[in-house]
């Protein structure tokens, strides 16, 4: 275990170094605008301190999305750390009952995440991979369509948000979401929160919640927690911008989305084998 950790750290360090080089180069050539450059900072948390970006302004994008590099995720990332980073900061209660649990991001295997792509002779490698699932911040979100009070809504930058004060708890969004991404607070969640983070609101009994792609952080110019905790396995950026990290990552190999055939337009992409984000060091696995 320890050895693996060391390996991970090493890999990660070399990776962030690569990233820093890339950043410098990008800035030098002016290939990336300030906005785009600001984005790059988030892919590699180690750079956050080092780089002085000054302005804490909100990040802007036309369509925020995530690219999850499955191979990297399984090799270099620590699932529970990522999940914990999200859940702890967002005061997500730890309810240990599959019926009433609340979860924003969690892990599952290929056979379940991509049920329709499963087959009897699936490679053992793929079978062994774990995936992270969360709200897909769909382009055409059915949860938003069905909500009778507009308590869940889509922002101009593509993030699907929740207004916990308007939600009446009818759970139409839970039924309407084809990804089971939403949870109801079946009871007062506060007793189930290990340590309440005062910087984020807790929810009340009877309202629905889900991943918000860390809007509160994006609006402060910070990347989502899961991205930050992923050791570079989760790339975050503007899907509408061909120069963005996410778009470049998508160029590097086969990407799939959960149940794309339903037309919801999920904005979370999974990079499957063979592909490593071009930005984030193709050399890493070489």
């Amino acid at each position, binding site marked *: 275990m320890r050895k693996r950790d060391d390996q991970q750290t090493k890999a990660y360090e070399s990776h962030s170094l690569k990233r820093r080089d890339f950043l410098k180069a990008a800035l030098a050539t002016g290939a990336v605008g300030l906005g785009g450059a600001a984005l790059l900072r988030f892919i590699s948390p180690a750079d956050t301190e080092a780089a002085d970006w000054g302005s804490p302004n909100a990040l802007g994008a036309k369509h925020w999305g995530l690219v999850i590099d499955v191979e990297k995720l399984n090799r270099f990332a620590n699932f529970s750390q990522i999940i914990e980073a999200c859940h702890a900061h967002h005061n997500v209660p730890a309810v240990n009952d599959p019926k009433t649990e609340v979860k924003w991001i969690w892990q599952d295997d290929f056979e379940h995440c991509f049920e329709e792509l499963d087959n009897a002779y699936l490679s053992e490698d793929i079978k062994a991979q774990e995936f992270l699932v969360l709200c897909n911040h769909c382009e055409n979100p059915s949860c938003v369509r069905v909500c009778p009070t507009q308590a869940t809504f889509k922002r101009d930058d593509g993030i699907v948000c929740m207004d916990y004060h308007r*939600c009446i708890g009818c759970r139409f969004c839970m039924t309407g979401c084809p990804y089971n991404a939403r*949870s109801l607070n079946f009871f007062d969640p506060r007793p189930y929160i290990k340590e309440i983070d005062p910087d984020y609101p807790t929810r*009340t009994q009877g309202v629905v919640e889900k991943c918000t792609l860390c809007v509160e952080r994006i609006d402060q110019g910070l990347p989502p927690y899961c991205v930050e905790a992923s050791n570079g396995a989760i790339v975050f950026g503007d899907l509408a911008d061909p120069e963005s990290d996410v778009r470049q990552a998508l160029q590097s190999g086969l990407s799939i989305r959960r149940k794309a055939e339903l037309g919801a337009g999920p904005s979370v992409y999974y990079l499957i084998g063979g592909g490593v984000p071009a930005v984030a060091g193709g050399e890493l696995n070489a």
Partner: protein
Amino acid sequence: MLEKALHGSRRYYIWLAFLGALVIVGAIAYSRQLNYGLGLTGISRDVPWGLYISQFTFLAGISVTGVMVAIPHYLHNFKAFAKVVILGEFLAVAAVIGAILFVVVDLGQPARVMNVLLYPSPWSIMFWDIVVLGAYLLVSIVIGWTALAAEKKGLPVPRWAKVLTYLSIPLAIAVQTVEAFLYAGLPGKDYWATAILAARFLSSAFASGPALLIMICMIIGKVSSFKVLEKAIDALAKIVLYAIVINVFFFLLEVFTALYSQVPAHQVSLTYLFFGYQGHGNLMPFMWAAAILAFIGIFMLAVPKLRHNKKTLVVALLAVFFCGWLDKGLGLVLGGFVPDSFGRVMEYTPTVNEVLIISGIYGIAMLVLTILYKVVIAVRRED
């Protein structure tokens, strides 16, 4: 006129007391749920809708009974229904009140229910559902009450009330259609995503509702001097027969598509409901019971001798009514959640608290019905 509900026989008071007890127990159970949250019910993250929503759907279906008697009477001048029309309207009133209450107890934050009207969302079917249900409730109360007042004075129903009755016909159809659209438009819920769902809802409603109305008429005939014409009962029974036959036919269309196409998404919910899936099969006995009841009901209603005999008619009607309840008030909603988006099965079992709340709401609906019918009977006894 309402004061007429205050005087009745001993039997009447015992019945009221029984319903009152159901309501009180239900209210206590509901206050527990209000306090603790929906965790006191059997619903879960994977099956977010349970018996509350399915009872809501079922009762909204019962409410269309009003138009099933109004159409023959007003559009085809079928005189035998003259005395039944008001009963149909009031059955609609009680059913819609029950349906709305089921939505309210289902909410996680019931105090905020007005948000639906404060922030109207035309894209949400739930919004339209509340609009049509509210309108239908209002129209049914007004029509029923006006017709009764006219009857009391020995006057014909005023013209405007007749116009309102015509309006109530498309409204009732809309209630069922919108109700079906709550389900039929959801991506990834293949059991519901079928174009025939609204038609199934209508046919099922036109079977269960009139079946209930006939049984109520028979009970009224037993406990009061007011008799519904044999002709009216037989006409209603035929409506029930046609409706249940059409309903079964529609269901078999679904079965064909699922079985012949062999597309798993079309099949899995049906497989789960009738044969179990991944070792889960809580609903199997109920679904088979519904299938058997449908055929018993159809057979007994189709044979004139059995349909004309009061005793066998009641058996047939009970069969149809419970078949409708099992299919729409149980299997339809719960089957749609299997499997979840990860291909897993989470089963739903209602809790005792939940069942007490449900019986409390049925208690309220029956209380409303009893009081309204009591007034009708009292008014009619006077002439």
